[in-house]
């Protein structure tokens, strides 16, 4: 698997898109620091961007890479390599290079600004960890969509819909159900509903760590009680990990049954 990973990674590092992505984060980091003039505030602004943008880029990039590397995949399939090796190698190549772009692009401006001498370093690290999780999760979901859809347009469509659903529509439903059922105790419901959406989960996690849970209003206290503890943090990370592993397993399983 590591050989495939190496070649996919190598291929991506030389493609224009990795640089575009890297430069975008680099510019974003510098601009935010320039405008906010304060590390902690920049981290909060950055969170809002990362929560929405990282999943989108992971999804689009994942689908795009899967379809455009069709030839490479077919070349590999005729070689003495295990199928799951080929696809997992490609997946980790894509997710790895995206994560690297993210970490370097944001890391450089923050480090230059004096991150290591600041209190914000833990918050910033959490932000990067969550950004990496989201990249891995959404690239895996994108690969799953692409492997199940021969038709590129359909694949792209489903991928964008998935992102739209988890980033925007899900919250709408969530809020709506909170209003409709406001007479009932909703603590466990809202906790569970948050777990089922990696974007919501990440957002909640960061808000609580940044100690701005007041933004969460009614359920904020419940969340704080739960996520604020070490147990809560562990559970949340576990769920994110679960969100990563599940699609990766499905990818390995699906790849065994597909015709090329």
């Amino acid at each position, binding site marked *: 698997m590591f050989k495939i990973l190496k070649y996919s990674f190598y291929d991506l590092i030389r493609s224009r898109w990795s640089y575009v992505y890297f430069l975008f984060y680099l510019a974003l980091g510098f601009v935010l620091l320039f405008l906010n003039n304060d590390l902690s505030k920049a981290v909060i602004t950055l969170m809002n961007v990362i929560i929405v943008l990282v999943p989108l880029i992971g999804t689009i990039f994942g689908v795009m890479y899967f379809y455009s590397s069709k030839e490479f995949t077919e*070349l590999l399939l*005729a070689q003495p390599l295990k199928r799951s090796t080929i696809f997992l190698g490609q997946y980790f190549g894509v997710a790895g290079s995206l994560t690297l772009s993210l970490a370097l692009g944001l890391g450089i401006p923050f480090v230059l600004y004096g991150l290591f001498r600041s209190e914000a370093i833990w918050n910033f690290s959490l932000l990067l960890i969550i950004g990496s999780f989201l990249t891995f999760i959404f690239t895996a979901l994108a690969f799953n969509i692409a492997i199940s859809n021969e038709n590129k347009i359909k694949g792209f469509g489903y991928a964008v819909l998935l992102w739209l659903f988890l980033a925007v529509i899900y919250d709408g439903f969530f809020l709506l159900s909170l209003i409709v059922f406001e007479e009932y105790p909703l603590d466990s419901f809202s906790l569970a509903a948050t777990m089922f959406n990696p974007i919501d989960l990440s957002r909640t996690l960061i808000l609580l760590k940044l100690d701005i849970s007041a933004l969460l209003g009614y359920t904020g206290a419940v969340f704080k009680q739960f996520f604020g503890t070490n147990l809560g943090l562990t559970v949340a990370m576990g769920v994110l990990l679960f969100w990563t592993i599940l699609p990766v397993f499905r990818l390995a399983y699906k790849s065994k049954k597909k015709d090329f």
Partner: protein
Amino acid sequence: MIKIQGLHKKFGKNQVLSGVDLEIDKGGIFAVLGPNGSGKTTLIKSILGMVVPNKGSISVLETNIKNSWKYRQEIDYLPQIANFPGNLRVKELIRMIKDLRREQGNEERLIDLFGMQPFLDKKLSTLSGGTKQKVNILLTFMFDGPLMILDEPTTGLDPASLIRLKELILEGKQKGKTILITSHIMRFVEEMADEIIYLLEGKIYFKGSIEELKNKTGQTDFEHAIADISINSADV
């Protein structure tokens, strides 16, 4: 070498292979023929494990290929359409395939033979169709496995390269390899093949030498004999 029993494959509603039985147990050149859409490529891809059959079993070199991948080390496959990752250079591609197969190749000789030296540092996306096919041939023939599968190997080649390709194939035959070829160029098949495997509507319609085929159809010319099968079977 290759043993196929009751192979069935369906793509959606389209039944491509319906009960292929085939046994090849010696070296030589075997031409897999048949009209468009008769399942030649599907058969080849099933042997390579790229297509998963619905029913039936395939053994290559005495091992059942289901869920197996190591056997592909013994197969040198030339795909029909030579598409490669465009970002790579020819030299890098050669190195990558050797690395992935953990095998040494004798590419130097082939590079000289096909005059590929000036293209080694070019990116694959910039090559012409014929040159890509030469790269394709190079990647296939630089290894020395006992089984060779060539899907339309003559596509896009100039006459000089075609002659060299034929020499390479004959050289493989002399080494005792089993070589499966599909082609629509009947003169090429007639010149090269020891045996014909004719696929029709997902089944093997005929397997035997060119002489036997001519006798069976009552034609003296090979091309007409092949055409005869498709016309007569269309009547049935």
